[in-house]
């Protein structure tokens, strides 16, 4: 799925990027292609190597082999020129517990020689406002809740204007309002022309905010591309809501479809709706013909939908059903 684009149009590009910890390859020869201006979802189960990849991109750890270009420049060689243009949240927020939220941001801002001291206080205030922490600015971080620290971590990434934001699980620990705010924030950053690289294992979230995504599994990229590309790999389903589940299954079978077996307790009260699904393996059966056949057979159709495959289906298909962390 890797498209050979001129690298000027890419915000992040890796070739054969590998990181070994002893014998284990935490990142195993990945070729990431993140177009400029994209909101790029970086998906993968726990331990699949997302955070490790981000550390390599930001020059925190040295790659065992492979190369990285961020904003068109080789990393970590051009780190001093690239990183001032990158805002990052890596593996959760980290702060000095004995300093206030605002003092923490001021402290971390001094690390960036391109961040003017004259506007520091103002920029800190603005960043705090963007994540809704204005009222907790003077409070010691020791007394912050998990979600407040997470918000402060995001504020830290926003202290200066950025061309690229790398956010590792930005909504971890946030309340629903916070999650929604992060989605809006990502949208507004993207609207301003920044590229946003978000790692997550929340598929619904990635589906809502991303234009592109890559799926990692055990250190390798198993799929990458636009969101439509990724979903397109799956098969559409019909989904029928009806109290007459058994009859509906018979009708579908007569039309050559393979309905999924009934789920739920056998002594389910009959007045409750049953949901019958069946994959549409080819285009030979028009969906309106299915509805007509159901109605003709006296099936009380209360809901009918043709659904494309969800990202979740794809994710599970690509990374496996097992719950255990690989390796």
């Amino acid at each position, binding site marked *: 799925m890797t498209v050979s684009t001129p690298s000027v149009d890419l915000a992040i590009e890796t070739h054969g990027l590998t990181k070994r910890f002893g014998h284990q390859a935490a990142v195993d020869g990945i070729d990431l292609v993140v177009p400029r201006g994209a909101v790029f979802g970086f998906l993968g189960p726990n331990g699949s190597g997302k955070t490790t990849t981000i*550390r390599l991109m930001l020059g925190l750890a040295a790659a065992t082999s492979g190369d990285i270009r961020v904003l068109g420049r080789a990393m970590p060689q051009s780190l001093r020129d690239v990183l001032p243009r990158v805002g990052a949240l*890596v593996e*959760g927020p*980290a702060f*000095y517990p004995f300093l206030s939220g605002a003092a923490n941001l001021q*402290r971390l801002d001094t690390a*960036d020689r391109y961040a003017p001291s004259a*506007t520091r206080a103002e920029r800190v205030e603005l960043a705090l406002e963007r994540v809704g922490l204005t009222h907790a600015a003077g409070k010691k971080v020791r007394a912050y809740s998990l979600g407040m620290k997470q918000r402060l971590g995001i504020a830290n990434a926003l202290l200066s204007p950025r061309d690229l934001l790398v956010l590792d699980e930005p909504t971890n620990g946030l309340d629903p309002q916070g999650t929604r705010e992060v989605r809006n924030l990502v949208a507004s950053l993207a609207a301003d022309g920044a590229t946003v690289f978000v790692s997550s294992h929340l598929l619904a979230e990635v589906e809502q905010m991303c234009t592109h995504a890559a799926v990692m599994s055990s250190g390798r990229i198993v799929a990458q591309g636009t969101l439509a590309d990724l979903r397109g790999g799956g098969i559409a389903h019909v989904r029928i809501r009806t109290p007459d589940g058994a009859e509906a299954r018979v009708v579908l079978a007569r039309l050559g479809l393979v309905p999924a077996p009934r789920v739920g307790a056998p002594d389910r009260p009959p007045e409750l709706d049953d949901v019958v699904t069946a994959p549409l393996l080819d285009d030979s059966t028009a969906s309106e013909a299915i509805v007509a056949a159901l109605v003709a057979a006296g099936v009380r159709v209360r809901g009918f939908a043709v659904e494309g495959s969800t990202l979740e289906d794809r994710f599970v298909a690509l990374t496996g059903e097992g719950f255990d962390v690989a390796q």
Partner: protein
Amino acid sequence: MPSDLVVRPARPAAGWALLSSELSVLFRRRRTWAMLAALAAIPILIAVAVRLSSSPPAAGEGPPFLDRVTQNGLFVGITALVVSIPLFLPLTVGVVAGDTIAGEASLGTLRYLLVGPAGRVRLLFVKYAGAAAFCLAATMTVMLAGALIGAALFPVGPVTLLSGDTVAVAESAVRALLVAAYVTVSLLGLSAIGLFISTLTEVPVGAMAATIVLSVVAQVLDSLSQLDWLHPWLFSHYWLGFADLLRQPISWASFGDNAALQAAYVLVFGALAYGRFVTKDVLT
């Protein structure tokens, strides 16, 4: 963002902001204040104990200079420094120097400073400068607390130096500052050792303990006459050698020897810290 905030300067600033932030974080920490307060308590305890005791200490009894305290309060600071040098000063310096990199690593703020980007070499310099500033603050705290409590409890007047000459109070203050400078310089080698150890671990307490243990080991080795070939190379060798600064005329030989030895330690352990830190994977 308002337009005046979105302009990125074309050139990077010199980067003093990180140093001033380092100093302000260091000296705003309650731990730093607690250590300085403990150091200040040493001259106060000495002065009060001497004042309350019925018989003044005889010459050669107790730590050097103790017998002079009752005659002149200006000696309290110097006596307290002598008492603090073997353990209390290395203890506090070990805490600060051992915490430099490992403390940031354990908090996780190291990754955010580096992503800033602070620059690894610049961060090492800034961290070392912070530790050196603490050495100065620690020494000056003992000296100043000593001068104040000495002036409060004992007579103050012209000071009789070790050479028998008498100097005025102003001149004696200069001598006291010279002694403080000597002791500060003495601690710079240990700070560099602490900085290096701090790059080896993510556990600040481990780095602190190792630094403090090394300072004790060096002093033990320095006291074994079988190892006298080694003594001139031990960073603690000249720690108590500031008596030459209390003679008329001042002999600078020991100051120079001490400074040269400490500079060698700073260079060697600074280079080791550099070698370790620039290639280190930051995984916390």
